[in-house]
């Protein structure tokens, strides 16, 4: 997708709430045809996204419908992000007039397990996108108890982004191979860049993670796990996760004066986008942060306003924690589902097959969400080639492909939103020192496991 924020998917962020309110108003003013699906005519719903995002999907659906001899298709764009979009979708399903296809920016597992989306396994058998053509770690984000409820057609891939010019100015190698391989190395290197002016953070190296939805990646990097989908058990307060937070907390104390508020008052060091509330620019793009973890969607947005104050950046693998053995990546997919009640389920699935293979190539060319089906050989995005040259663009595309192959399972719990809120709460308590690490994680573990058991009880 064209842009995402650090806010947890489904968690109502300030911007999300505003967007949702506006979207709801827009939705109410849409013509009846936008909601009433008809046989032989596909209706697609999209959550938020840029005009370009909407244009690409409208074009892809129209092209497919025309080629398949279907009637005129309708794409409804910008129906709101997060909880607002889910509300609208659930409303349409319960009212019996859902879209034929919907994109989701939150895992389909939770609603799928409750019967909101059609199981796709039978349709996938014998199709051109059978189960084996999907990376298992990624597809698990759409599966529950062996049933596939959606397809992660493209995905943002999480990796480390770093400013090569800042590295070189310190006399460090800016080659990908020289990037820190462990958390200890990353922490030592980070100190080299971090400069305070009183209580203002002028420049920084790297930041300990505090983004709830990527905690599963950091846990896996430390040899841990957040949710064991086989045994249906949360492991939030496992030894590896306690060790991870203790490591982060010591790091904050040592390098960031033990206070993320001071960091936040100094700029947006959290992600690569301007802060929607404070308007503060992204420190990474301003050349004030040596590196950060981000999704690959930033490839499309990094050259947008505010343009970066430097030219050369690169991507590297995620470093491994003290108890970890191997690097992993993570993902934030663009899921597609066929809601129960679709009047054109066969045509909808055919469209998903088309989108997963041919469509995702066109999509990636314009907005760099990485195609995930193994059959797709994506070429480097045109915008990236234009800005960084063919060689760098090809290298980054190949790197993202490698990272996609080592994704850790994420988004695979039927209580994903509940977990996200719990880990956000625990993280905040830990960093503000309102609770010791063990206690905060144990509380999140107990609450999330109880919610999981409640939902699974039937």
């Amino acid at each position, binding site marked *: 997708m064209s842009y995402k924020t650090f*806010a947890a998917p*489904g*968690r*109502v*962020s*300030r911007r999300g*709430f*505003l967007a949702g*309110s506006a979207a709801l108003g827009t939705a109410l003013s849409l013509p009846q045809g936008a909601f009433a699906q008809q046989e032989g005519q596909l209706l697609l719903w999209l959550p938020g996204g840029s005009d370009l995002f909407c244009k690409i999907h409208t074009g892809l659906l129209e092209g497919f419908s025309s080629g398949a001899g279907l009637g005129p298709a309708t794409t409804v764009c910008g129906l709101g992000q997060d*909880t607002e979009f*889910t*509300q609208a979708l*659930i409303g349409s*399903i*319960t009212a019996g007039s859902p879209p034929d296809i919907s994109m989701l920016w939150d895992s389909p597992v*939770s*609603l799928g397990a*409750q*019967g*909101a989306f059609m199981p796709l396994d039978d349709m996938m058998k014998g199709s051109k996108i059978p189960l084996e053509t999907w990376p298992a770690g990624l597809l698990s984000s759409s599966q529950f108890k062996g049933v596939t409820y959606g397809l992660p057609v493209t995905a943002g891939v999480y990796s480390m982004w770093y400013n090569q010019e800042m590295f070189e100015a310190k006399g460090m190698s800016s080659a990908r191979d020289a990037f820190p391989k462990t958390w200890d190395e990353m922490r030592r290197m980070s100190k080299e860049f971090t400069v305070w002016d009183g209580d203002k953070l002028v420049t920084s190296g790297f930041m300990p993670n505090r983004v709830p939805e990527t905690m599963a990646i950091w846990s896996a990097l430390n040899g841990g796990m957040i949710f064991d989908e086989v045994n249906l058990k949360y492991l939030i307060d496992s030894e590896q996760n306690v060790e991870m937070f203790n490591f982060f907390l010591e790091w904050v104390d040592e390098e960031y004066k033990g206070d993320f*508020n001071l960091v*936040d*008052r*100094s700029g947006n060091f959290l992600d690569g986008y301007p802060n929607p*509330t*404070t*308007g*503060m620019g992204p420190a990474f793009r301003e050349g004030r942060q040596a590196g950060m973890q981000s999704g690959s969607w930033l490839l499309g947005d990094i050259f947008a306003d505010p343009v970066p104050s430097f030219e050369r950046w690169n991507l590297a693998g995620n470093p491994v924690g003290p108890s970890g053995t191997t690097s992993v990546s993570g993902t934030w997919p663009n899921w597609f589902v066929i809601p129960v009640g679709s009047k054109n389920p066969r045509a909808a699935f055919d469209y998903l097959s088309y989108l997963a293979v041919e469509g995702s190539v066109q999509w990636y060319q314009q907005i760099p969400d990485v195609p995930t089906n193994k059959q797709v050989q994506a070429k480097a995005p045109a915008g990236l080639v234009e800005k960084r040259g063919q060689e760098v663009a090809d290298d980054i595309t190949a790197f993202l492909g490698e990272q996609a192959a080592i994704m850790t399972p994420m988004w695979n719990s039927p*209580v994903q*939103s*509940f977990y996200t*809120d719990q880990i*956000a*709460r625990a993280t*905040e*308590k830990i960093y*503000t020192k*309102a609770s010791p690490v063990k206690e905060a994680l144990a*509380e999140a573990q107990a*609450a999330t496991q109880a*919610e999981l058991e*409640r*939902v699974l*009880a*039937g």
Partner: protein
Amino acid sequence: MPDTNPSAGAAPLPRRNGGAGRGEARAGVLFALPWMVGMTLFVAIPLILTFYIAQTKFQIIGAPKWVGMQNYEALWTDPAFWTSARNTLVFAVISVPLKLIIALGLALLLNRATALSSFYRTVFYLPFLMPAVAGSVVFMLLLTPNAGPVNLVLEALGFNPPDWLLDPNAALWTLIMLSLWPLGVETLVFLGGLQNIPKEVSEAADLDSPRGWHKLVWITLPLITPMVLFNLVIGIIYSFQIFTQAIVIGGTTGAPAESTLMYMVVLYRAAFRYFNVGLAAAMATVLFLVVLILTLLIFRTARSWVHYEGGER
């Protein structure tokens, strides 16, 4: 409540012709019918359904399953329920009296006849017309720690301003402060009461005591107690239902550190984020009962402190 009917003790009204009376009754019922239908469809039935759903496991998709009191038991052990209840109570206990005092002060000022009276009345009512979301965002920008105008001014004056919306110790107070902004309705209600005080009473009070506060305490306040009662009841109901500002500022987790986590936000996220509609309905039932009991208590005590013109204490 004492009988305040001005016709009490007067001669009985002549009996109406039976047929005409029934006709009038039918017309009355017909006129009231749209309201009765609306009340049944949009209030009574949803209310009964809420009581029912509160005793089911209902995940929006699929049929509700009867679980008895399980949702209420789950509430009892849910830390978010207690945190949000405490935050909401603190918000209500502080914001409602503050609102009443400030609105009364504004009404007293606006009651003075000046050339700009109408202008000021409009100005003070305007914030009420602004959507709560837009108002909250404006305040978030004003209160931004580094670049926000409020902190810039405070820093220039030599103060060390707080992180209004980032510091868990300050965020709830900031939310209370923001709730004091749209006071248009409360002020207008008080103003209406002040303008209904008979001139002769006001002038007699002026003659009796030259001290303004004597008149305020002994004459003005007793005569506007019905308006105080109205604003108090409405204020309590609204304060227990605070949602928009809280979710815009703190999201569904009540950031920072659950300090802005309000009851309605927890209810909303239970229903539409966790799809636990049964629990949300149980929360709605508890809130309904708490507000109902508080309102009845206020009406009960109102007998001793609300004065109606022509009535008894």
